[in-house]
């Protein structure tokens, strides 16, 4: 910053004065931003190049024996990535612009940016948890796998609910029931006929048929609910759906249906003890069979050995710089255990399913069909007066949404090898609603974001907070009652209360949900992504380009009032 103009420019741009002068920083940043602005391979090449150089430099400068530290390898990753992020941010973001403003900017860019921002922050939070817990890379991968599993399943369910509530204005609070129908019908169709001494036999049909059957059954149950009930007003319809969902759950729970024989075929729901689900076929990509002790097969035989010992010794012990300066040992720990790998493979399948849901529902919404649904939501009388058979639209939309809920249920509860009626309590419906409200009803992208935020920060987050706190604070025994937890306040003791809170963190999730909902209703009642504002048409609804010129702008000649009078005479 030698010339006066340059200095003036820089301070005008940064607004930070002369406090942050690093020799060569300004031209470097200009160069970097130039590269970044070119986009494509150049931008990514530059960014990845920096990542690599940074990795090597980091290993050389602060490398040490990771294993000897109490909080493990994640810290190394954390420091390295934080530094990289800070450097990249400083280089690409306009100077002195606060982080939030930068985020706002990116947020407006595209739906992909929105998703990346939300997922990026969820990942960052769990990275912090992993560091604080001293988890190795495997632990971090496991935690993130679980977060992404819940993100994906919630995103699917919220997308389906968004069709009901966001588009058609159908108040469905029986989601859990439709999930249960999908899961149990799938299980009954596809569990083997010979279920062993403890299990309940099924029909032994191939899994794809079972899944299809489950989806169709959920849609049909939706039809049964919709035919009489859609005549009711929204709130009464809601009561019908929640009642139906409880009827379904209690039926699955009953002894009567535990095991029954129809037309010579014996099957059943397994009652309160639950039902074994057909094995998750993703497992067969990695193992020879569903048995716990099965040997690896196909992908498993390739991937397990690769990830098992993936520890790269970047700086071996007893190394010396230029043969003189002793260097600390540094090992990059990327080892991942087989179960985590299998989980991630299933998460990849779920991500594909979310994409399918998203495409289907965006197409449904952005079409004349979606337009009629929106009109029904806004004013059903108008839709009718314009010649729309609103009952047909409501029934089709309701069945479609219920079928998707059935499929979502199968991919969620049906994939875990076992399910029991308790998994389908109304609370699940409530959670899905909360995720929808966070994301913003009426927006498909918002539905996915709502699913991610709910799964990461409300569902999985509190559990990790407890783990982190108990990792650092010696809490002692957890008090059994609330008075016992609050009583010690008198003596200035806070820890029993903290222990009590953390011991009941699952229950406290409800409180957290309540607090978040109240805050959201106060500050942003329309949720994260606007309220029901996605345009319903198969094409962008702008002025067609050829009309953009003069034609539309020129006022058409207005007939005079006298002309009208003359014609009447």
């Amino acid at each position, binding site marked *: 910053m030698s010339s006066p103009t340059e200095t003036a420019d820089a301070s005008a741009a940064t607004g930070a004065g002369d406090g942050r002068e690093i020799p060569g920083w300004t031209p470097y940043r200009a160069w970097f931003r130039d590269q970044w602005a070119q986009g494509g391979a150049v931008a990514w090449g530059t960014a990845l190049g920096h990542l690599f150089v940074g990795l090597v430099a980091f290993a050389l400068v602060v490398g040490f024996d990771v294993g000897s530290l109490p909080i493990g390898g994640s810290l190394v990753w954390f420091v390295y990535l934080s530094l990289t992020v800070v450097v990249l941010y400083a280089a690409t973001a306009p100077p002195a612009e606060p982080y939030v403003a930068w985020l706002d900017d990116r947020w407006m860019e595209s739906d992909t940016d929105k998703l990346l921002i939300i997922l990026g922050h969820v990942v960052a939070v769990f990275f912090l948890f992993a560091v604080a817990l001293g988890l190795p890379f495997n632990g971090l991968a496991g935690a993130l796998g679980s977060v992404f599993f819940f993100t994906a399943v919630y995103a699917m369910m919220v997308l389906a609910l968004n069709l009901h509530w966001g588009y058609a204005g159908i108040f469905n609070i029986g989601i859990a029931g439709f999930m249960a129908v999908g899961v149990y019908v799938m299980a009954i169709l596809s569990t083997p006929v010979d279920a062993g001494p403890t299990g309940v036999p099924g029909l032994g049909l191939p899994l794809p048929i079972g899944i299809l059957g489950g989806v169709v059954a959920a849609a049909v149950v939706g039809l049964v609910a919709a035919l009489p009930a859609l005549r009711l007003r929204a709130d009464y319809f809601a009561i019908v759906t929640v009642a139906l969902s409880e009827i379904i759950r209690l039926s699955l729970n009953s002894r009567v249906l535990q095991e029954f024989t129809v037309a010579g075929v014996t099957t059943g729901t397994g009652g309160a003890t639950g039902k074994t689900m057909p094995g998750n076929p993703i497992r067969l990509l990695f193992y020879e069979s569903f048995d716990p002790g099965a040997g690896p097969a196909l992908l498993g035989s390739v991937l397990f050995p690769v990830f098992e010992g993936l520890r790269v010794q970047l700086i071996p012990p007893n190394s010396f710089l230029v043969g003189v300066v002793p260097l600390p040992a540094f090992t990059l720990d990327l080892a991942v255990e087989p179960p985590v790998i299998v989980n991630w493979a299933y998460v990849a399948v779920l991500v594909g399913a979310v994409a399918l849901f998203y495409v289907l529902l965006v197409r449904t919404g952005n079409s004349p069909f979606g337009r009629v649904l929106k009109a029904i939501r806004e004013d059903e*009388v108008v839709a009718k*007066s314009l010649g729309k058979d609103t009952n047909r639209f409501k029934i089709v939309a309701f069945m479609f949404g219920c079928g998707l809920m059935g499929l979502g249920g199968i991919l969620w509860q049906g994939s875990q090898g076992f399910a029991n009626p308790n998994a389908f309590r109304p609370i699940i419906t409530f959670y899905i609603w909360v995720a929808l409200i966070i994301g913003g009803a009426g927006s498909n992208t918002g539905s996915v974001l709502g699913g991610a935020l709910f799964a990461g920060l409300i569902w999985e987050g509190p559990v990790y907070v407890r783990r982190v706190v108990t990792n650092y604070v010696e809490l002692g025994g957890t008090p059994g009652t609330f008075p016992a937890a609050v009583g010690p306040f008198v003596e200035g003791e806070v820890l029993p209360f903290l222990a009590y809170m953390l011991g009941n963190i699952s229950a406290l999730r409800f409180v957290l949900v309540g607090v978040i909902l109240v805050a959201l209703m106060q500050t942003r009642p329309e949720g994260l992504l606007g309220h029901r504002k996605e345009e319903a048409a*198969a094409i962008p*609804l702008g002025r067609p380009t050829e009309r953009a010129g003069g034609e*539309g702008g020129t006022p058409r000649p207005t007939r005079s*009032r006298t002309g009208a009078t003359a014609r009447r005479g």
Partner: protein
Amino acid sequence: MSADAEPTADDAEDTAEVAAAAQGARDAAGHPLVVQDLRKTFGGITAVDGASFSVEEGSLTGLIGPNGAGKSTTFNCITGVHTPTSGSVTFRGNDITGMAPHQIARQGLVRTFQIARELPDMTVLENMMLAPQGQSGERLSHAILPGLRDGVVAEEEELLERAWQQLEFFEIDHLAEEYAGNLSGGQRKLLEMARALMTDPSMVLLDEPLAGVNPTLEEKLLDRIHELRERGNTFLFVEHDMDVIMDNCEHVIVMHQGRVLAEGTPEQVTSDERVVEAYLGGDV
């Protein structure tokens, strides 16, 4: 009921005369809408009591009457919002009595509402594109399946073009991308009429289209109605304001106490003593 007993023999005779005249009109070709002996009771109250009239093809027919004359109920019986207690409504030779509103709209008989019912959280263009009949994309399969959706996209482009033309015709094209809920009262009336016309109707029922509209906009709306009538649309126009009807309609139907009191040109109607007595004579 007691109200029925009150009219004198004279009145009954007159009503019979009117009905006979209407019968003659019905027999002639070119009357798309024929209402015959329409009756609607709500509990003990008879809102429409044997109304009969017909609307001439390509006309701008006014339906007037003092408050409580049964205009709105007649309107709702024609459009299927209410099911008539007795009597019949025929549109282009089809008996549409008691049909659902959407079935009647599909026949080409479309209505607007007294208080404009825009779809507030949808844009003006979305409002417009909702209306056209027989859109293939209204079937879920066409909306989502890859091969079928291409046809929907092509159709949508045509509809969008039509929507723009219609908005330009009503001079609200500058509001096209606005949410309908943000429009002023008068603009909503324009939108509602433009939307009704997007269904490509052969006849439009306007329920007090000028209520709550300022004079400038009122003129604009009437201009549009006249222009559309010249293009061959038929209008039945319910209005409270006598002057508007007298200045704009070539045929007027006067209702009183649920019956058709008089029918004819504005001049004939205003010179009819019963009308003057029932409506104009009273303190309006």
